[in-house]
């Protein structure tokens, strides 16, 4: 008995020692940050939604299509020179922030509203879309203002969505009350509304417009009542990564700048050859631009060539030629009364 106990103690001590040694051998933190990681494995991982036509959804051939997805492709084109070097990971609302925090995804581009509390946990880099919430309900209800919807049942996504907060604000402002029914994703919430479970469905504006336009059996049956509470939707990365922050921020800026300076996917070759001097500088004429951000000199050209500018991306996924025909509203260039404006490249 005694000898057994003694042997056990020896075993434990040995084990402890070995553990300390092994833990000491644990790989030391390597070069930190997302950029070396992405360059090393030669692709970018991007957090997408679980399937919203026009924003992010794999088509029948398995190719991801949508505005948010194309914005992500621009990052791959900028960093790796190839917009195809990207993998999309579908996430629901509850998974998206942890996925950024833990480094599972390099960048989140999935209709996520920029807020103070979220920005303290992850790092928002740029606003890609200005949106507002929308109340969707059947035309037959005959409602014209939120007040007319008092006491109605509302389907929405759980997981602390901005729609939930907006609804509470509407309740307080109008002194009305909604019955809420929560679902684990916008897709189940949407299906519940279409099946008649709720009178009203509340969600982000463009997302709702897309769902009505592409999933409703008869889109004309539904009324979309946009609320006026602004939701700036941004792309986000994990905190403490300046290098990747630079790439993401200035790629988004490039998309907006290109549209407002007449550089499109169609004319980018011509612009690079014979455009105005400042345009040519950005598109690779000034190697200092690439050097400063740590990218190839022609990174901006590759982005526009492979993905297009902000307007190209919009038109391809949400524009008049698509089924969604979303009104750009606040996302027009500032000269046309919108909120989108580029930061200058140089003084």
């Amino acid at each position, binding site marked *: 008995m005694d000898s057994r106990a003694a042997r056990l103690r020896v075993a434990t001590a040995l084990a402890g020692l070995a553990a300390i040694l092994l833990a000491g051998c644990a790989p030391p933190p390597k070069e930190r940050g997302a950029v070396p990681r992405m360059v090393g494995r030669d692709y970018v991982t991007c957090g997408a939604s679980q399937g919203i036509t026009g924003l992010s959804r*794999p088509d029948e*051939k*398995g190719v991801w299509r949508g505005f948010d997805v194309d914005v992500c492709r621009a990052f791959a084109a900028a960093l790796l020179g190839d917009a195809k070097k990207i993998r*999309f990971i579908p996430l629901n609302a509850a998974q998206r922030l942890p996925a950024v925090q833990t*480094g599972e995804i390099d960048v989140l581009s999935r209709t996520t509203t920029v807020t103070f509390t979220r920005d303290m946990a992850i790092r928002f880099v740029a606003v890609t879309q200005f949106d507002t919430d929308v109340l969707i309900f059947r035309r037959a209800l005959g409602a014209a203002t939120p007040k007319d919807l008092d006491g109605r049942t509302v389907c929405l996504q759980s997981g602390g969505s901005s729609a939930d907060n907006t609804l509470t604000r509407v309740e307080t402002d109008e002194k009305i009350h909604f019955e809420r029914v929560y679902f684990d994703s916008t897709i189940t919430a949407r299906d519940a509304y*279409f099946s008649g479970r709720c009178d009203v469905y509340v969600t982000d504006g463009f997302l709702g417009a897309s769902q009505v336009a592409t999933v409703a059996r008869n889109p004309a049956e539904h009324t979309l009542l946009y609320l006026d509470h602004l939701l700036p939707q941004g792309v986000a990365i994990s905190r403490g990564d300046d290098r990747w922050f630079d790439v993401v921020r200035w790629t988004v800026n490039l998309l907006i700048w290109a549209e407002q300076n007449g550089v499109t996917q169609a004319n980018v070759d011509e612009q690079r050859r014979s455009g105005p001097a400042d345009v040519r500088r950005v598109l690779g004429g000034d190697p200092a631009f690439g050097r400063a951000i740590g990218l190839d000199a022609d990174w901006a050209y590759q982005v526009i060539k492979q993905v297009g500018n902000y307007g190209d991306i919009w038109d391809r996924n949400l524009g008049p030629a698509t089924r969604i025909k979303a009104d750009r509203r606040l996302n027009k260039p500032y000269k046309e009364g919108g909120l989108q404006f580029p930061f200058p490249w140089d003084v």
Partner: protein
Amino acid sequence: MTDAAVLPPRPAARSTRLVRGLFGSPLNVLLTLLVAWAVWSLAAPLLRWAVFDAVVLPANPAACRDVSGACWSFVAAKSGQILFGIYPIEERWRPMLVCAVLLALLGWSLRPAAWRPSLAIVWVVALPGVLMLMFGGFGGLSFVATTMWGGLPVTLILTVTAIGGAFPLAMLLALGRRSWLPAIRTLCVLFIELTRALPLLSILFIASIMLPLLLPEALLPDKFFRALIALLLFAAAYLAEVIRGGLQAMPRGQYEAAEALGLGYWRTQRHVILPQAIAIVIPSLTSTIIVMIKNTSLVMVVGLFDLISSGRAALADPEWSSPALETYAFIAAIYFALCFGFGRFAQALESRSKDSS
């Protein structure tokens, strides 16, 4: 609870037994009428919906427009998308081949005649082969990341690999839990009990969301394999408890006999104890494995495209009138075939081993 219901029937001619069973006593007459009424009132509308008023072909949206029954046309038209998810369409032959290979191998290896050591080698070769085919990226095959895998191949790969991998681990855990080495025993008990305390959903949640924070990147598998490992560990904990039940039922004499023959620990376990212990628990092993097959459906919740989520994705097509019940029934039929087939096979195996002993 009546006497008649609790007691097994006395042996009698089949037809007399049938008649007596249906109409033998006032209670049985009442039950027969009640059940017949219930079946009729449920089955009639079901049959009308699923068969008589249903439409199967042509497989286009127009076919379902004025149909009051089931719209199987949708399943016919979308079967590719439901079965193979968002895997690139021009490469779809690869998941098809993978499913065919896995199903054929499963069927083949379930026959006791195939149980030779070579079987293990076949699987050890086949599984990486199947994965390589899914991945591609060699010999002119384009690379397809796991984020694009979906539908039936995902369900099959998860099932086969998770349960196949869990089995040997479960044996080790079961032996470890009954080991005379206190440290080994404690570790096994801790692992088994903690895993069994948690719902699979929370384990999948930890694997898909938390693991990237806990492990260095070099050791971190992608989301698909994280879910796979979570399923494997979960299955191992449950299978280990089933196998332990078998080990506990082994008479002491078996150990002593093996010791008398001079067999060491591992040879005793491998040749004497485990084969008998596992034979004892085949019924509960079967039901545990069936539960684990069904559990693969939970990966949907952490965002993998299994059968349910690819079915849901197919349903989002506005051209169709969203025939959700038909789609889910189709998926349920696939799971049912997998689980029921396996259960039947295990039953046959059990009665065989009973006959031979």
